[in-house]
């Protein structure tokens, strides 16, 4: 299974580093092939909000940079993992910049999902989706927002499966490893 890991943490985040390491090991144990991208190392422009990817070059962002490659890799992967510090309950601007550039993989046309209007899918198959949020310590307000945000994100795309988890700086290495293993099993299934 081909896995794309987008790490939206800053370079000096030891907890995110631990999580990436633990995730790589958990994926390896399942014979999954993980491709970890540290987003701070990749320069891309933010989404322009021009809708060009819907009405000019359908499926392709009008900005010709690494954002296009990541959108392609996202669609070609069987599982995509987002790692982000939880900022005001949401994603870091770094992770969000890449997330916004994934809009081309959806169709502009509308459909109803659970009584709400959402966009139709452009493709027949989408990856599995795992989101990992990182906090220095428990914070009920931020965690509630983050959990609701990831659930709404999962409504937008017909992911094959999805899950999200929150990790604290107070977690031990063993707790991190065990929780990561459970999340990988939940989204990827055992094989």
């Amino acid at each position, binding site marked *: 299974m081909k896995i794309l890991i987008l790490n939206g943490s800053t370079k000096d985040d030891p907890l995110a580093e631990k999580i990436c390491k633990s995730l790589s090991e958990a994926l390896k144990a399942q014979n999954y092939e993980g491709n970890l991208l540290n987003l701070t190392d990749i320069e891309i422009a933010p*989404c322009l909000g021009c809708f060009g990817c819907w009405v000019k070059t359908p499926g392709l962002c009008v900005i010709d940079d690494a954002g296009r490659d990541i959108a392609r890799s996202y669609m070609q992967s069987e599982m995509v993992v987002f790692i982000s510090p939880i900022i005001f309950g949401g994603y*870091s601007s770094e992770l969000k910049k890449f997330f916004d550039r994934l809009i081309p993989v959806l169709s502009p046309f509308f459909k109803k999902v659970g009584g709400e209007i959402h966009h139709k899918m452009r493709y027949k198959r989408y990856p599995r989706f795992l989101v990992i949020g990182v906090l220095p310590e428990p914070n009920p307000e931020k965690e509630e927002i983050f959990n609701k945000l990831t659930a709404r994100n999962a409504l937008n795309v017909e992911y094959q499966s999805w899950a999200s988890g929150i990790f604290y700086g107070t977690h031990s290495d063993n707790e991190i490893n065990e929780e990561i293993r459970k999340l990988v099993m939940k989204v990827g299934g055992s094989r």
Partner: protein
Amino acid sequence: MSVVKKTLLLVGSPKYAGSSSESLGTYLLEQLSEKGIVTENIHINQLLKKTNGEEELLNAVNNCGLLILSFPLYVDSLPSGTIKALEIIAQDRAQNRNVKENSKQQFMLAICQSGFPEAHQSNIALAICRCFAGEAGFTWAGGLALGGGGALIRKSLMPGWIYLFMGNLVWRMQARKNGASSVKK
């Protein structure tokens, strides 16, 4: 609420001109101007491209009595450039605690507009703004969620099935205009 001397509008749309976020925000500024309140309008993405953009942003934020953030809903949240600005502001206020503690009470409100007819799709984005306000030392004055997109078609005026039909028709017309014939329903 105490008398607000200066109101700062931060426009969070990635579009430089003619965005719904700007239209909504400036409409509110005009109403406040008529009440004698001094107003300032900043387009976040344009300002942060300037050499001293961050400094200008922080000065404007620290000197306002009311901060209005107007932005479009992007993937259930704020556009990345708007989040970046909030990160810069919160970090500055955490490092310079005297700004936060010695300043007079500052208020913040947020306006989020989306292309979906259901205004509640913006609730998470507004909760993120509220969380930022608390962290950066602003008194949260509330959030306004507007659905219906650029035309601001009110849900009550347009049943869901008409929105679906019209929305899909508009996308097809725009694509055809651009010669993007491969767009399929």
